[in-house]
């Protein structure tokens, strides 16, 4: 398995993640932002790369499941910590509801997506994992969002995604649905034909471009 070159901040962040040192991870994130005040870069270049490497280390049995969970929990904690420092403009009338596909246990990626919506003036409602479809429907009726964003991290939940979208489309025919996540790693035109009428967003930079269209 060939690994991508690792940037220093991501490597340092990873090192402290694996040590379970939340304070150092937080300091690294803040120092990064002091030099480059782009939350998107921090998320994409430091957090995402470090967490992907955590996944690779688990795969190679270099770390335990517990360490993997610890790394994710620390990163989520830092996202919460940095929320206060996000440059959030005045809210527009746009609202987004964000959730994971039924069966998913990974929510850190879609949490980053929620922050990018916020930074673009959207009112965001991050529901994370484990939200039953009936509850999601009730929530959508209540909040009347412009967009629903669904995250798929693992391909074996793909069938659940297709079902989820069918239910949402039937209940809310005019609702805009966007999807993303590592489960779409191999997405090619036509290969996920069952969700082709749904907008796929490959990452935070593409999301930002997409949001400028609204």
């Amino acid at each position, binding site marked *: 398995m060939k690994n991508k070159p690792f940037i220093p901040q991501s490597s340092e962040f*990873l090192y402290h993640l694996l040590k379970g040192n939340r304070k150092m991870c937080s300091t690294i994130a803040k120092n990064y932002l002091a030099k480059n005040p782009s939350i998107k870069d921090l998320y994409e270049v430091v957090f995402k790369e470090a967490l992907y490497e955590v996944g690779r280390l688990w795969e190679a049995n270099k770390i335990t499941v517990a360490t993997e969970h610890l790394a994710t929990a620390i990163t989520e904690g830092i996202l919460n910590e940095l929320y206060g420092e996000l440059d959030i403009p005045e809210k527009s009338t746009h609202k987004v509801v964000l959730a994971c596909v039924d069966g998913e246990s990974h929510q850190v990626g879609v949490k980053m997506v929620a922050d990018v919506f916020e930074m673009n003036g959207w009112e965001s409602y991050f529901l994370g994992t484990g939200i039953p479809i009936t509850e999601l429907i009730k929530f959508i009726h209540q909040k009347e969002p412009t967009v629903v964003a669904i995250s798929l991290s693992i391909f074996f*939940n793909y*069938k659940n995604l297709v079902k989820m979208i069918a239910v949402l489309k039937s209940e809310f025919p005019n609702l805009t649905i966007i999807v993303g996540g590592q489960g779409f790693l191999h997405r090619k035109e036509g290969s996920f034909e*069952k969700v082709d009428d749904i907008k796929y967003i490959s990452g935070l930079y593409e999301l930002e471009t997409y949001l400028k269209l609204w």
Partner: protein
Amino acid sequence: MVMTKSELLETAQLLIQPGKAMAEEYASKRELLVNLLNKKMLERLDLDEMVGENNVEMMKDNHANHARFLESVFYSYNPEVLVDTVLWVFRAYRSRNFRSTYWAAQLNAWVEIYKENLSEDCYKEVYPFYNWMQINIPSFTALAEEAMEDPISTH
């Protein structure tokens, strides 16, 4: 013959996604199939030798995930997803001391259980995927071994 990843992909592209009714049948029987597979594998006297010490629960997780994954594959087939996921599984389980004999035993057991529990039509459409995985065990094993030799950053 041991194949490269791109050669595996070429052969995977020849597999045909099962029809919707077949995918639905597989989905409706998935939990039963997993239970039957676990039972069959747990009866084996050479189990510890194949999966390594204290790995039985991990093996059961693999069986449940395998069936969930194949259910999605039968619902929306993408050859790259299949090849990459099988490779990932071989690497992850190899690094936890699962032997290559486990894959042969597991895949043979799935096929036997499918033969007895799926309709003839469903079996005919599902079997080629298993035949493909069985034939390619040596290639997946070799690629997983290669990955083990390739250092991963541990800092």
